[in-house]
């Protein structure tokens, strides 16, 4: 049985300007110990998916319209708050994009690190502190014994992200959700943090959902990748298949528009237009207005994910019909 199974999740935001369908009917699962990458442009719903699982969607205006998220048999979207609290922060943890704003500037690192332990485990402050110290050393912070008593502003960006990771992993979660954890960091620091996540994953055997817009990061880290566009999954496959034989026109276009995949000096391939406005209902395929293979059928019929092979699903009507 997969560790997490999300079925038909819809998270809509009811704003004054209309209903914004940020996540519109997605289903996926994560196995124990697996790394799943979720890739998409901004506004594709990748973060909202994870916020929904963690119960972090601001309500109102957001509302989870339908769906279930079974984590080890417990539906995170419909269980009692008490049950959710016992899972969230202990068995499922999350790290965020911006380590500058996700740590509390008024509290010492030590206070923030031991908080999950004091909440979830019957443990004394002293014991919690010694575990926090061990964890800090584990994530590669030198002089942890002194630094644990500092405030977040006394750390650099990479160090803060390490603290965030230590905080998320201190309860030894089974699932870690990482929402663009390296986007705000320099490439050299990004390499350090990615190595750290891999190392911690090996040690703890946890599953990771890694959200990013950088296909390069995904290729080295993830076992499986799913590509999101306009609140829906358009393609999902194991990493090698997705990179070497992508099927969906959006995935293919996305890959072709990366500078490092193209010869220098040539005109870069671009996807014309912009992602659609999610506050208006989309009749057919959301990518149709920008797709080079569009037909009349694409504009009328909503595509669903269909299998290409046992581990490869995609949602393009023309690929499913064998036309592409």
């Amino acid at each position, binding site marked *: 049985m997969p560790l997490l199974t999300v079925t038909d999740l819809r998270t809509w935001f009811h704003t004054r300007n209309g209903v914004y369908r940020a996540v519109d009917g997605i289903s996926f699962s994560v196995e124990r110990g697996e790394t799943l990458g979720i890739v998409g442009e901004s506004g594709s719903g990748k973060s909202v998916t994870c916020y929904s699982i963690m119960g972090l969607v601001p309500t109102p205006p957001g509302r989870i319209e339908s769906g279930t998220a079974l984590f080890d048999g417990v539906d995170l979207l419909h269980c009692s708050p008490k049950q959710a609290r016992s899972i969230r922060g202990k068995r499922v943890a999350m790290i965020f994009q911006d380590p500058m704003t996700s740590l509390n500037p008024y509290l010492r690192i030590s206070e923030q690190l031991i908080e999950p332990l004091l909440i979830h485990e019957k443990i004394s402050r002293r014991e919690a502190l010694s575990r926090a110290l061990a964890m800090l050393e584990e994530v590669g912070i030198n002089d942890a014994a002194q630094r644990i008593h500092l405030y977040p502003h006394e750390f650099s960006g990479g*160090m803060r992200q390490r603290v965030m990771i230590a905080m998320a992993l201190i309860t030894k979660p089974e699932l870690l959700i990482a929402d663009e954890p390296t986007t705000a960091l320099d*490439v050299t620091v990004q390499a350090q943090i990615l190595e750290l996540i891999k190392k911690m994953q090996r040690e703890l055997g946890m599953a990771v959902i890694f959200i990013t817009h950088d296909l390069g990061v995904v290729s*080295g880290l993830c076992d499986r990748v799913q590509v999101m566009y306009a609140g829906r999954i358009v393609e999902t496959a194991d990493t*090698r298949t997705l990179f070497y034989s992508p099927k969906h026109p959006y995935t293919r276009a996305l890959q072709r528009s*990366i500078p490092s995949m193209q010869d220098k000096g040539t005109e*870069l391939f*671009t*996807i014309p237009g912009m992602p659609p406005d999610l506050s208006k209902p989309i009749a057919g395929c959301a990518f149709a207005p920008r797709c080079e293979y569009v037909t009349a059928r694409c504009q009328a019929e909503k595509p669903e994910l269909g299998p290409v092979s046992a581990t490869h699903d995609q949602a393009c009507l023309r690929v499913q019909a064998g036309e592409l």
Partner: protein
Amino acid sequence: MDDTILQLNNVSTHFPIHSGFVRKRLIGTVKAVDGVTLAVRRGEVLGLVGESGCGKSTLARTIMQLVPTTGGTVVLNGKNLSDCSATEMLAVRRGMQMVFQDPYASLNPRMTVYATLAEPLLVHGVCPPEEVPARVANLMKTVGLAPRFMQKYPHEFSGGQRQRIAIARALALEPKIIIADEPVSALDVSIQAQILNLLAQLCRKMNLSLIFIAHDLSVVKHISDRVAVMYLGKIIELGPALDVIDRPRHPYTRALVSAIPTPNPDVERSRQRIVLAGDPPSPINPPAGCAFHPRCLYAQAKCKLAVPPLVADGPAREVACVRLGEI
């Protein structure tokens, strides 16, 4: 050299740090840019890369004279900018324009596209007032925006379109050189490609020089003719873009290149990555000798002794590493 449009000679920009409230004491200086010598040729795209805090944006601002230089000279088109009077500066600024990183912050939200693009034309008296609307329409076409959006405000545009407006504003005065400070970092991949194509196309068509600042090496490699790598206020490697990124010589450039994740799972899994330890040191108190030595894999005692100068390595390349021949 006739061909040189912008020449930097040993340019330094230092910021003093004061302490105390009533009696200000000088407690140190941040050497944001420290002794940079660089030439940009006509029609050339020069990529400038480095980690955050290495001084690439300060260097851009120094060239634009938005911050005063501490030492050295910036020569644009044969004119030394630090000698210019305020009125001369206005004329000089026509020749160089800047595009900023964040198109959400660099456009005035209360000005329509027309007002934004007309302002430089009117301030500099580029053309008679009655010709301004036609010029603005032309500019918008140049960057791929429909002139019918002229009376719209920035918030009505997407990030990529806003960056196009910012580029149009920079082009309004027909500059010789454009400095683009991370113009695509805030944009999504598919939009990024559109802006990169636009910049490359404009440079070719108008024989513009471009200083392209970015931290993404694959983007820089794609667009630039030459690349300069900065570390802690100094240029440590300079050369043709393909050369520098495919065959980096300086240990720092090697680490930087190896840290870029490639969208190719087989390559990504098999290669050995050089993971640098630690963060870049503080520019207030840089390490003695080569500023990179505390993080360098090849550091020796002699690296701590003197700051390595940028020396020629082959006809077109320059590298600042004392162990260049040995590693």
